[in-house]
């Protein structure tokens, strides 16, 4: 129960033990991945053979490829990065436009459109993937039959991966940015208009700066979700796999600890991203 009520000792002990067990459950897999990135053995498995950096730097004499020498893996990180940048730019752009549309404009069918914007969030990622794949192929075939043109970007590949991820990440960006625009005090804009500002000037100096935290926040979330997306990407991927797909393929085959090394790199990167965002939030609240 709550602290203001008497809590028997056994309950307090049980709560603490439960919390400890829960935290161990949460962090055990991550800690394991991190530790075995440094194990001096060809497979990420016990026992401990001593500390090594081979799985980062590589060791030609022992026939080990480290993360920084694994061109395939590095290429897939780069692919993921490019895809994530494209998805982030598209999602934040469309999300901001949608926020203005839903909060400022009046038009028939607005309620239906607002409900439709939530639909991507309840479609399983696999289904988003196959439906976009099938639809894009149908268009490509149609164009091919009609004009004899081969539209390469509608075949499985990175453009489709970007579109597939964008299709639901845009919904998240829309929700985040709309929520902030809803709390905007319109008298601020009115004051600027009264002082003779043009529409463009008001947007640039009042409204967009107000929206900036939500735009940065949703950009970070969009980047992360794109980088980590698996389900939708799996269905749409072509010849150059992003990192998650590459890792999945190797995990099925039983890979060397180089995967642990790249995972550790991912953990550090997401932790840094999370910390930066939280510090920003903290400063704003203070």
């Amino acid at each position, binding site marked *: *129960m*709550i602290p203001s*009520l008497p809590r028997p000792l056994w309950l307090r002990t049980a*709560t603490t033990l439960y*919390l400890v067990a*829960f*935290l161990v*459950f*949460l962090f*055990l*897999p*991550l*800690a*394991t991945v991190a530790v075995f990135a440094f194990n001096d053995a060809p497979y*990420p*498995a016990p*026992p401990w053979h001593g500390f090594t950096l081979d799985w980062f730097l590589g060791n030609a004499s022992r026939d080990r490829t480290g993360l920084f020498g694994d061109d395939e893996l590095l290429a897939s990180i780069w692919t993921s990065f490019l895809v994530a940048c494209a998805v982030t730019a598209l999602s934040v752009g*469309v999300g901001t436009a*949608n926020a203005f*549309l839903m909060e*400022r*404009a*009046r*038009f028939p069918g607005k309620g239906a*459109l607002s409900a*439709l*914007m*939530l639909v991507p*969030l*309840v*479609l*399983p990622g*696999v*289904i988003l993937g*196959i*439906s*976009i*794949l*099938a*639809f894009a192929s*149908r268009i490509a075939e149609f164009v091919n039959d009609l004009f004899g043109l081969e539209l390469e970007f509608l075949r499985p590949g990175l453009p489709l991966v970007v579109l*597939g991820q*964008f*299709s639901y990440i845009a919904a998240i960006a829309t929700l985040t940015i709309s*929520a902030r625009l809803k709390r905007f005090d319109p008298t601020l804009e009115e004051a600027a208009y009264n002082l003779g500002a043009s*529409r463009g000037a008001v*947007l640039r100096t009042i409204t967009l700066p107000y929206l900036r935290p939500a735009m940065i926040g949703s950009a970070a979330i969009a980047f*992360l979700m794109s*980088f*980590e997306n*698996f*389900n939708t990407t*799996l*269905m749409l991927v072509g010849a150059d796999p992003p990192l998650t797909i590459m890792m*999945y393929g190797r*995990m*099925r085959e039983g890979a060397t600890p180089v995967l*642990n090394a790249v995972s550790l790199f991912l*953990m550090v990167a997401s932790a840094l991203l*999370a910390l930066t965002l939280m510090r920003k939030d903290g400063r704003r609240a203070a």
Partner: protein
Amino acid sequence: MPDATSGPAWERRLLLGLLLAPALLWLFALIVLPQIDLALLSFRERVAPREYVASLAQYRTFFAEPLYWHVFVRTAVMSLAATLATLLIAFPVAWTIAKLLRGRLSALLFVVCLIPFWVSETVRTLGWMILLRESGVLPALLAHLGVTAAPVELLYHDATILVGLVYTSLLFMVVPLVSSLESLDNSLIEAAYDLGGSGWSILREIVIPHAAPGITAGCIVVFMLMLGNYLTPTLLGGKSSQWFTEQIYTQFIVRFNWEQGAAFGFLLLALSTSMVWLGLKLSGQRFGDVMRRT
């Protein structure tokens, strides 16, 4: 600017058009039309190269072939079980964050609970594989402690899939639970206690009714994510995983039987949508509110 209620009429129209264009393009080109196309695809049958007739053959195959609907039912039942397990595991944690801890400590625990979910599901699954496989950490530990004579294979069981699914969805349960429990006024609990309510009756009559929207929201989202998960069941369950998304992948990508794959996709979508609908009906909530909550 996009105060689309002022200015001359043509300007308002232009502005509205400019704002509507990206939304409509996104929703129709990537969501509505592809879903309609998928439906059409699932209701046709190839009779000759590039020749199709409307038919229910794909759906007949689903019911005629026991493997397919067994996997379907299995996926639904296991997702349901894993959702309930997630709720039971997450509730005490959410309670601790919302009610037992104060200020910084509560915020800290909340953040600590979120951290693992900033890391890719691929990485978390890799961790479980290293922990659980026959040559892995836990079997070695169990053998060392003498619990088992030799290291046992802990991967590729149904229980392993459940653990993986629960682990990967905890966040989506903890967040809505915390926000719905935080809004519960402590004085209600104190009043119930003063009137002689026991822990159980307070939980049943005060806490759960108040937290019902959060519980529903969490369960709906978690169930949906589990149903549509591919990575965790295939890697932790191996060949015996038999998850329905795997059947969709096999039909679509491996066998290139798009009609069958589309039908499977539609069946999964129907199951997922009906569960969302049922959850909303049972708790009397609106869809938009639930999605905004999570």
